[in-house]
C-alpha cells in the first residue's frame, strides 16, 4: 500500500510506525516476512545503491485484558541478509554520492513497545534499539620495511602490530504513539526519534623504531574517530483508516526532520537539507473468498536542495507505487481468524534530477511476502 496500511493491519503487526497498536492485541500475534530490494539507481553510469538486499522482518506482539483496561507489548526486528550492518564512511566533501539512498535498507533495526488501551483510546511507548561501535585501534610500527603495492603504498603488515578494542553498544531512541481504535475509524499518531550508527574511538599510531631520527620524523599520533552513518531522521506519522463497505481506504502522512543532517565527518551540507513532508494513500478491497487486494501511492519530497557549495550530495523526489494481495485462511484477520499470507511489490521512481551536471535517476523495486498469525 506504498507505506499506508499500518492503521488497518493486524494489531501489533506494524509496531515500528504504530506502537500503540500493541494495546489492541488479544492473545499473540506473530508476523514473519521476507523482503527483497532491487535498486537500479544511477548518477550517470555510476550505481549509487548496492543490491540486491534481502531481509527478514519478524514481529511478535502479545496482549489481553488487565482488569478494566487492555495491555500489550511486542517487538519488531528487521534483519538484512547477509550483512547485519554495512556502513560506508566518505572522506572527501566533494565526493559525489547520495546519502539518502546509500545504506538505507542495509542496517539491522529492532523496535519494542508496550501499550495500554482505555476504551477506544490506546497509547504506546517504546524504543527503537540501535547499535553503536566503539572502535579503538592501536598500530605499532616496528619497521617501515615492506612490500610495495600497486598503489605505491608500503604493505608493512609483517612489521606492524595491530590491536583492536571494539564494543557494539545498545542505543535507544524514543517511540511513542496514540491510537483511536473505533469500529468506524482507526487512526494513529506516532513519533520516532532520530537514530544512526555511530562509530567512536581513537586510532593510535605508535612507532617502535631504533634511532632518534625516526622518532623525530614519526612521533606517536592519535587520530580521533567519530562518525555517524546510516542516519535516519526524527519523524512524526499520522494514519487514518475507515471501512467503506468492502473497501478500506487509508491515508498516511509523515513529517521528517532532516535539516539536522551532517555527513559522516560531521560537515554540514551547503546549502543544508530541509525538513520535508511525505503523503500517501492506500486502498484495501475485500474481493471475497478470504482474498484482499491492496494498492497505494505515495509522494516523497527530497530533503536535499541543489548543492551550490563544496558538497556534492544527490537525491530526488520519489513516486512510490505499491500493489499486493492477501489471503486470510478462514476469514480476514481483523475478523477473528488465524492466519493471513500476503504478497506485495513496490516501485519507487526517482524523478530525474540534475546533480552538478550529472543526472540522478532510477528505480528501487521491493518484493515482499509474509505471513501474519494470531495465536
Amino acid at each position, binding site marked *: 500500500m506504498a507505506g499506508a496500511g499500518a492503521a488497518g493491519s493486524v494489531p501489533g503487526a506494524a509496531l515500528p510506525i504504530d506502537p500503540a497498536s500493541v494495546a489492541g492485541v488479544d492473545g*499473540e500475534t*506473530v508476523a514473519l516476512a521476507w523482503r527483497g530490494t532491487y535498486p537500479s539507481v544511477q548518477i550517470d553510469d555510476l550505481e549509487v545503491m548496492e543490491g540486491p538486499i534481502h531481509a527478514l522482518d519478524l514481529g511478535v506482539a502479545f496482549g489481553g485484558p488487565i482488569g478494566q483496561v487492555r495491555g500489550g507489548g511486542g517487538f519488531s526486528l528487521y534483519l538484512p541478509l547477509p*550483512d*547485519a*550492518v*554495512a*556502513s*560506508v*564512511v*566518505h*572522506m*572527501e566533501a566533494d565526493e559525489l554520492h547520495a546519502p539518502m539512498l546509500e545504506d538505507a535498507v542495509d542496517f539491522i533495526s529492532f523496535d519494542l513497545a508496550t501499550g495500554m488501551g482505555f476504551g477506544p483510546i490506546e497509547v504506546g511507548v517504546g524504543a527503537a534499539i540501535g*547499535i553503536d*561501535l566503539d*572502535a579503538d*585501534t*592501536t*598500530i*605499532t*610500527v*616496528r619497521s*617501515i620495511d*615492506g612490500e610495495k*603495492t600497486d*598503489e*605505491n*603504498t*608500503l*604493505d*608493512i*603488515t*609483517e612489521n*606492524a*602490530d*595491530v*590491536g*583492536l*578494542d*571494539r*564494543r*557494539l*553498544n*545498545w542505543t535507544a531512541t524514543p517511540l511513542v504513539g496514540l491510537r483511536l481504535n473505533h469500529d468506524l475509524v482507526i487512526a494513529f499518531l506516532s513519533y520516532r526519534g532520530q537514530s544512526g550508527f555511530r*562509530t567512536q574511538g581513537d*586510532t593510535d*599510531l605508535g612507532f617502535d623504531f631504533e634511532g632518534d631520527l625516526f622518532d623525530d*620524523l*614519526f*612521533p606517536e*599520533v*592519535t*587520530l*580521533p*574517530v567519530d*562518525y555517524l552513518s546510516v542516519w535516519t531522521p526524527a519523524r512524526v506519522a499520522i494514519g487514518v483508516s475507515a471501512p467503506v463497505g468492502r473497501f478500506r481506504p487509508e491515508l498516511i502522512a509523515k513529517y521528517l526532520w532532516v535539516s539536522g543532517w551532517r555527513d559522516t*565527518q560531521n560537515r554540514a551540507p551547503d546549502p543544508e537539507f530541509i525538513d520535508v513532508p511525505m503523503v500517501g494513500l492506500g486502498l484495501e478491497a475485500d474481493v471475497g473468498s478470504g482474498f484482499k487486494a491492496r494498492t497505494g501511492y505515495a509522494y516523497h519530497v527530497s530533503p536535499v536542495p541543489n548543492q551550490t557549495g563544496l558538497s556534492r550530495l544527490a537525491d530526488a523526489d520519489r513516486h512510490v507505487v505499491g500493489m499486493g494481495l492477501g489471503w486470510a485462511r478462514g476469514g480476514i484477520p481483523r475478523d477473528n481468524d*488465524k*492466519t493471513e499470507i500476503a504478497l506485495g511489490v513496490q516501485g519507487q521512481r526517482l524523478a530525474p534530477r540534475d546533480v552538478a551536471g550529472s543526472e540522478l535517476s532510477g528505480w528501487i523495486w521491493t518484493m515482499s511476502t509474509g505471513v501474519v*498469525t494470531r*495465536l
Partner: protein
Amino acid sequence: MTGLLLGLLSIAQAGVLSTYGGGEVGSAGNAGATVRSPMAAWHNPAAMRSPRIEESVEWLYGVHRFTVNGEEIDVTDDANGLLVGAVINGYWFRVPALNIGIATYLPMAGPFAWKEPPEGKKQTPSTPRVPRYGNELNRLEVALAGNLWITDGLSIGVGVDVSTEVETLTIAAVDDIDKPEQAKKAQDIRITPTFHPYAGVMVVAGEPGSTGLRLAVVGRTARQMHDFGRSNVKLLALDALYRHEYFRHQAPRSVTLGTALVCPSGFEFRADSTYAAWSEVVGPYGDDLGAAWGDTMNLRLGVVGDWDDLSVQLGHAIEPSPMRQVPAGTAYLDAPARTWTAGVSRVLVRPGARELRLLLGLQRTRFQPTTPADPSGARRSFDGALTAVRVGVELGHKGKLKGALWSKSQ
C-alpha cells in the same frame, strides 16, 4: 516432567549459552535429554515439545575470575544480560508434531565486545590469555531451531547458531601532524552473520506416570568468527598499509550423548557426555596449536525432584581441559574444572491453561590450580572460577499435546 528445572550447564563450547545458560536451571549441563524447556532450541532442538507456546525470560549475572601466579588477569567482561527462550508448537499451523524455538542471550552491556592487544604475530606474546573464554562470556548469542516428532517417542531437530564476522576497511590521511583531529578518515564496516548448524535426535520410552527412559544425541558444527580488514594510513611521506586478521568466538565440532531415567516417584536421573574436537581449533591469530591442544570428553550428572508446584535440580559436571601444554610461542592457558549447580522452579500462578513459574539457579565452576608445562620454560600457575546466578520467569502451557502429525482436529 515439566522441563522447567533450572539448568546451568557447561557444554565444552565457550559462550554464555553453553557456559552459563543454555539449559535448564541447575542441571550442570546435562540438558541433552531434557524435554519441554523454552531454552531447548539451544541445548537440543529435538527436545522441544510444547502443547502450545512456552516462553522464559531470565536475568543472568556471571562473574569470571582468572589468576596467573596469583595476579588477576583481564579475560572478558562479566556476563550481565537476559536469557530469552521460546518454543511454539505447530498446532497453530495444523502440524502439532512440529515445534520451532529460539534461545538467545542478550548482553545488557553491549551486543558483544572483543579485544585484541597489539602483539606481533611473529613475536612471542607475553600476555597470558585464556582463549577458551577470552571475549566469549558476554557476547550476543542467538540459536534458532525446529523439530518434528516422527512418533510419540522419536523426535529429530535441527538448529542454527548465529554468529558474526567483521570486515573493517579504514583510511586515514594526516596532513598536519600537530592537528590529527583534522585528518581525513574513511571507513567501511561490514558485520556479516555466519551460521553454524547443529542437529539432535531424541528417543523417549515409557508412559507418563511410569518408569521411562530418554536418550538423546546432539551434534554441532564448529563455530568461528573471522575479524579481518586493512588500514591505510598516510602520515606525511609515509603511505603505509596494515592488515589484521583474528579468529574469535570459536567452538569446536562436538557430539553429545545424553540419557535420563524417569521414576514414578517424581525423581529423574540424568547423565550426558560431550566429545569436543578442540584439536581442530586454531589460536586467535590463526596459529596452529599443534599437539598442545587436544580433544576432550566431559561428564555431566544431574538429579531432579519434581512435585506438583515445585521442581528442584542439582547437577555436577567434570570438565577436562583441552590444553596438554602451553602452545609453543604463546602464553595460552587453561585448566580442568568441576561445576556444581542448583536450581529451583516454583509455580506462582496458573491463569487459564498457562502456568507462570519462578526460576532461580546458581552455578559455581572451579578450575583446578595448574602449572602447565611450557616449552619456553616459563612457569605460570593458573587458577580460576566462574560464578553465576539466574533469576527469571517461565510462562508454560498446560494444554494437552496433540498427537496427530498433520491435523490439530484429531
